[in-house]
């Protein structure tokens, strides 16, 4: 599964980072960085990615 970011929509709320710190983080400028954008289905990483997508308050993240 692929984590996709709608960058213009991302406002840097950072809630996703709390759910999946191993997959993505806000850099020093407050811009979201995807450290990994592929996760294997059924793994803990996929669950974390899915939680990160779910908490984005502006729906800027999705799993495809």
């Amino acid at each position, binding site marked *: 599964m692929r984590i996709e970011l709608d960058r*213009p*929509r991302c*406002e*840097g*709320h*950072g*809630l996703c980072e*709390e759910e999946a710190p191993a997959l993505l983080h*806000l850099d020093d*400028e*407050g*811009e979201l960085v995807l450290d990994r954008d592929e996760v294997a289905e059924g793994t803990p990483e996929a669950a974390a990615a899915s939680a990160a997508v*779910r*908490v984005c*308050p*502006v*729906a800027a993240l999705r799993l495809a």
Partner: protein
Amino acid sequence: MSTKAPIAVGDLDLFSDEVLVDPYPTYTALRETAAVVHLPVNDVYALTRYDVIRDALADTETFSSASIGFNPMVNEALQGTSLASDPPVHTQLRATLSANLTPRSLRGLKGQIEEKADALVAELVESGSFEAIDALGRVFPIQVVADLIGFTDEIRATMLRWGQAAMEVIGPMNQRTAENFPVAGELYAWCSQVSADDLAPGSVGRSIFEAEARGEIPPNTAGHIIHQYLGAGVDTTVAAIGNIVALFGQHPDQLALIRKDHALVGSAFNEVLRYWAPVHAWGRRVTRDVEIDGALVPAGSQVAILFGAGNRDPRHYDAPDTFDVTRNPVDHLSFGYGPHGCAGQGLARLEAHAIIGSLATRVERLVVGEARRVPSNITRSIDALPVLEVVPA
């Protein structure tokens, strides 16, 4: 198509005094009736359950923001704002509005906001007893927003009245809405003529005008942006901060949990917002015939999204009527969700986390008296709350 019409609840006025003061029994009854119910008195289809609300907020094609208010005058007045527009027009307006409000642009303010909150809380704790809404719930967000935009003292004194009116007029054309239109009009008129010189040097308000002068945002949008900061950012945050004090007063065990573990500050704010939603109802217009949980809502219908009903949906949250600061309901609906999710939520979090952090540091227990509530169409807030005794930490 075999889809049936939504169940009608014939006699309910969603905006009656009784419902506005204590909407939760009504929310429960509506939510247990159906995910969408028709309310003929208000001529709306109300969304009552968590999943349908979140789905509707995400689906801007079907649920248009052209009708976020419950009377045609306010929807007319809001035309051209990000609040009332749909993608793709919305996308640029939203970016312009939120440019100075995103967490990344507010990062530098965190320390200042925490200092202001702590100075205020320290003073109130020292005083031993205080009126929580005037002395904290109102003072603090007004100070933060006024400092951010760069308002003069004269404008600070009217911010509360303007902010309340801007929310009130989003209701149906009842007496409250009618009485508040002139006040909301004063705010609109002031924002239409405000200029950079009226705002403090170095403020965000002035930088918005400078961006307009440089052609970075369209002509005449700076005033509209300031209008939205004032209209949306005052009354709602006042409600949330008042609710923090009231809920901590009513649930000393929950305050004790935060005192023991300050990592719960964010979770506690999410729970305050989930438990008592600051916004009662928000509108959408259905652009096509849409089936919601097996019921057909016809194209053109006005929808009322009941955030507070969704936030207490037992299909989504266990024991939803329990106030539990360890729950961390990060997906609560009180900021909305998706493209129109509250543009000021980063600022609201900074303010509320600062207040909760200071209370948890300085206060052992708050002995509160009875909260007074005054019916208001859209914002549900406490109007007066005596803190009879502060037991300091």
